[in-house]
């Protein structure tokens, strides 16, 4: 009776779990335990893995970006709303959205947030364009029925309810809009030019929709101006504001004030109205300069900053809370999860903070918004 163990060992080859295991390629004697010397592989492609570190010399920094044309206020808005995504879109022409395969096989059963926002936007536009004497309830009724017939709403009684729910807050919102329009009855017909530049970055755009109050002489030169923005959806969450919705009006607000006029922006949202108080020309110009400089740097390299996270950080000064906003927490998806560009460049909050510039950029891009003086406007006829 022979002891079988040595025979068994000689006959047995224990392969590593992975084809790229270094044991296949080392050929070293100390790997020879348990018959590893018998290891061989035809998968030559993995060999490179263990030879030398790959040349990372190509990791050069990007050349400074040279803007090919003047930028528009809209581009600035997009940049500020999402600096990292803007970098990928504008500089690299990379778009991460992947919705092309989405197939809708069913009728809508209920409206999601985005659908509700879009439908309300359409209805608000209809109400805004209607004759100022027209009955708002009737206008909204007509238009929403059109939407229902087009299949944009759920079926049967559910559609009826959804329609009523969509329209319900809009009447008072549009009434409020009309009220403010009456307080600022004179709308300028010709848009004004906005111009600004820092270094190579030149901004140019048109400012329209300026209004002047009824109390002022329409010929007076140093008058107060206002713009009125109608926003679908709500702007408050708890005690905080939905800053990503206010950013667009805020940018126009600053740009307008930087042209030398004194203008407030009245924002009329679903549940409340507010106004950005006018800024001095100097204040506004300083903000614009910081933005334009940041725009340039934001196209040289992705800036480690994201709107919601930065606003939270500026308000709370707590990195922990900002981290929860960025990475998400229990029952809450984080900013990085909703944005593929951020996920590519700064997968975690630690990556965002890696070069220590996060708070600098947060302050530069959003500090003025965080400190903006906001006037809450009473909405008449609303309880509490």
């Amino acid at each position, binding site marked *: 009776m022979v002891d079988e163990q040595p025979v068994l060992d000689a006959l047995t080859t224990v392969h590593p779990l992975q084809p790229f295991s270094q044991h296949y390629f080392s050929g070293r004697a100390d790997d020879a335990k348990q018959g590893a010397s018998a290891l061989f592989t035809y998968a030559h492609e993995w060999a*490179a893995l263990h030879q030398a570190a790959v040349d990372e010399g190509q990791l050069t920094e990007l050349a400074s970006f040279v803007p090919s044309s003047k930028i528009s206020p809209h581009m600035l808005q997009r940049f500020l709303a999402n600096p990292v995504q803007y970098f990928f879109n504008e500089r690299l022409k990379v778009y991460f959205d992947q919705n092309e395969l989405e197939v809708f096989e069913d009728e809508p059963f209920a409206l999601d947030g985005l659908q509700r926002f879009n439908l309300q936007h359409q209805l608000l536009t209809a109400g805004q364009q209607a004759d100022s004497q027209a009955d708002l309830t009737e206008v909204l009724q007509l238009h929403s029925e059109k939407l229902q017939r087009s299949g944009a709403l759920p079926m049967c009684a559910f559609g009826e309810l959804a329609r009523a729910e969509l329209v319900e807050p809009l009447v008072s919102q549009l009434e409020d809009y009309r009220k403010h329009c009456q307080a600022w009855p004179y709308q300028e017909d010709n848009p004004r030019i906005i111009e600004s530049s820092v270094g190579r970055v030149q901004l140019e755009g048109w400012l329209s929709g300026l209004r002047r109050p009824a109390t002022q002489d329409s010929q007076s030169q140093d008058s107060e101006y206002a713009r009125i923005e109608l926003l679908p959806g709500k702007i408050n969450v708890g005690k905080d504001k939905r800053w990503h919705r206010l950013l667009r009006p805020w940018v126009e607000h600053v740009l307008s004030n930087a042209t030398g006029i004194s203008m407030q922006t009245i924002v009329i949202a679903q549940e409340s109205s507010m106004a950005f108080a006018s800024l001095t020309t100097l204040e506004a110009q300083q903000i614009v300069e910081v933005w334009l400089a940041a725009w340039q740097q934001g196209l040289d390299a992705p800036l480690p900053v994201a709107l919601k996270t930065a606003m939270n950080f500026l308000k709370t000064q707590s990195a922990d809370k900002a981290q929860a906003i960025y990475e998400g927490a229990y029952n809450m998806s984080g900013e990085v999860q909703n944005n593929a560009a951020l996920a590519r460049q700064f997968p975690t909050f630690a990556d965002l903070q890696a070069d220590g510039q996060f708070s600098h950029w947060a302050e530069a891009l959003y500090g003025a918004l965080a400190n903006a003086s906001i006037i809450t406007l009473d909405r008449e006829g609303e309880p509490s």
Partner: protein
Amino acid sequence: MSHSESTQPLALTFPLHGSRLIEASAGTGKTYTIAALYVRLILQHGEHNKAAFNRPLLPPEILVVTFTDAATQELRDRIRAKLVEAAQVFRDEISQPDALLSQLRADYPQAQWAACAQRLDQAAQWMDEAAVSTIHSWCQRMLREHAFDSGSLFTQTLETDHSDLLALVVKDYWRQHCYPLQGHNVLWALEHWQQPAALHSKIQPLLHAQSTASTATDYQQSLNQLLDSAIEAQQQALAELKAPWPAWTQELRDILDQAVAAKAVNGRMIQTARYSGWLDKINAWAADPKQLKFDIGTGVTRLTPDGLHEAWKDTSAVPQHPALQAMQSLPTELDRLTFALDEQALWHAAHWVKRRFHLEKQQRAQMGFDDMLTRLDQALQGPNGQRLAQVIRLQFPIAMIDEFQDTDPLQYRIFDRIYSITDNRDDCGLFLIGDPKQAIYSFRGADIHTYLYARRATTGRHYNLDTNYRSSAAMVAAVNQLFKLAEDRANSRGAFLFKQQDNNDLPFIPVHAQGRKEQWTVAGQAQPALSVWLIESDQAISREQYIEAMAASSASEIVRLLNLGLQQQAGFENAQGQLQALQPNHIAVLVRDLREAQAMRKHLAQRNVRSVYLSDKDSVFDSQEAQDVLTWLWACLTPDNERALKAALASSTLALPLSELERINQDELLWEQRVLQFQAYCARWQKQGVLPMLRQMMHDFALAQRLVQRPDGERALTNLLHLAELLQQAARELDGEFALLRYLQTACAGQAESAQEQVLRLESDESLVRVVTIHKSKGLEYPLVFLPFICGFRAQDGKKPFMIQEDQQRKLILHAEQQHLEQAENERLGEDLRLLYVALTRSRHACWIGMADLKKRPEQDICFASECTRLPTEQCPTLDQQCSSAQLVY
């Protein structure tokens, strides 16, 4: 009861007929015993002590059921090896045979040895046809082989994922029953169900509930009719509740007014302004026949007998009034009204969906996993059931059910029907093998109470495997001591909470230790088996703090031990005094979930210790790599689509430098090259398949080289290879490339439970520290085990439906009342204690557990915490700043 003391091990004396239960504590050689019983069945061993079966059996006649496919494979191999070994023993070919086998051989006269050996050899060769299988595949086989007796179709396709079909059925319910709703019924449906997807998740638990513990709802009527009558009934009940209140509020007002005037009450607790506010609100509520919501703030506790008792100065003069009594139960009764309607409607939906789903599957001749069991069960309970049971019993006179603690009522009913467990028949045998202390799969529907029921049904026929072969004597003693303390404490509910007075369905029985040849030593000193670390704090700490502190401490200790191992100072010393140095793969950290694992791995990585994570839940489709492969495939299919191609090139996994991405924009030729490159991928995909294409791509981008430089590079690389394989597999059954793309997209978005093949694969078999979930670790063993987060738990908050044990069966609770919550908490704690048992018994030599006083701890939990702190402790040097360590020495 335990088996009689004898010199022979249980595996040799166990009677091979009748229905019997073997309790095999962790590490007591359960698989070894099953294999030994198998050998005896083949040989018809045991005639001398009436333990033999009435005839010798062959592998196809012995049914062995276990839990997973992997376990089936392993068990089959072990049995085959045991048969071969036994044959060799009978031929006297082994110089030092296994003690058990030589005892077995001694029971036969030498003249029979050759015949026995031949029989064993035959059996070993026949193992390919042995009936070793999972319960599901066995049921499927029975339905197919006995199609006439079971009344099932000859050919049925097995569909592993039916979630799409189910979603379709739910939508159909919505269209048929919710669209026709009228008036306030629509509002009700909108408020409670919103849309089909929400309804789907609401009725999901109801679909799986074994019993329809609902009220006598008429399922023939439409939802509209049901809501009409139910809402009317609700309104009636509500009106009855409200009826007396207008009069009562006036009377209460008088009583309180007088009391305040007479200064008979505590002015802080009863103020005119506040109670008149409450009473006004009650009046308003009572006046509106439809208002269900009842909110009067603290009034709901003050306007009760107890509340007034507290506020009255002279407690003997506290007024009595029926309203006070009624107020006590009012909130609960109102809740019940809401819930009753809610449950009725949900059961209506669930019932309809269940029936329709069944019908749809039958029309398609499809079966889901669970159908295999339910259909065999139905066949056995049906008119032909007797006959079918008899046929199966003849086919498999003996059945051994492994891991029986994870059974459920359905499985039990099937085996009970065939082998009639309580009758203890001697013309067949059913051996139930398991360890109730390791029943930790309740979230998958396993039901320990079914096990306990089986345990009662086999009273008098219980057997215990009583020797632990896995752990060192000290380790076994430590675990014995820990659970024995809890078991023997006066007025306790036993270590596993099943003790009632003098009866304990789930006793803790200390096991003997075989001991181990080697000894765990550090710097020449034998080490204690069990170390308990306690975070000392004045106040309860949060789970986050606990995890953070314990992960840091454990990582530091692991580093210390590994460093000692490198210096040949720590390791396992055998009897000859040779030391096998400690390696990273000797250490396992057991965790509950991904979050704990990530915390642990983060701290290990900070200290330059590499680790691997093993789990049985996380799907490869949830990884970033899956997302990126999706963009790659999309780009390969449409290389002319600039957006798609650029998105692929910019993906995180490809990780091209930004400068490279910019060059594509500037250099027209380079761009063209890329387009051609992806066109070539597309061609390769079409010609050779998706796997060669992805491999080619990984090669072209030198992905392997660049990925391994990332800390989680091997993980990413493993995921990529895994995905490529899965896609290649899926491609065989799909038509065309776009179908595959769609498959991957739905898989990535899918919430469906991940199938076995989607579970993340082990990224490396190098000698690394293992971070393992406790569930995954079951059945495995490690020399050193850390349980840093064992105190963590998730209390039952009743927000989601849950199951509790009530009146001998599982009951689904949709809306929790206090006593249900207590019961569920109790069961949750029981499961956590079993989890602790599983975790502790994984270790061969030593185990570390991290303790802390955790916030939000329901009272019951203290039972477990105080158990440990009550053990003799002695202070040891501080490990980390937050954490002092107390070591227990045995």
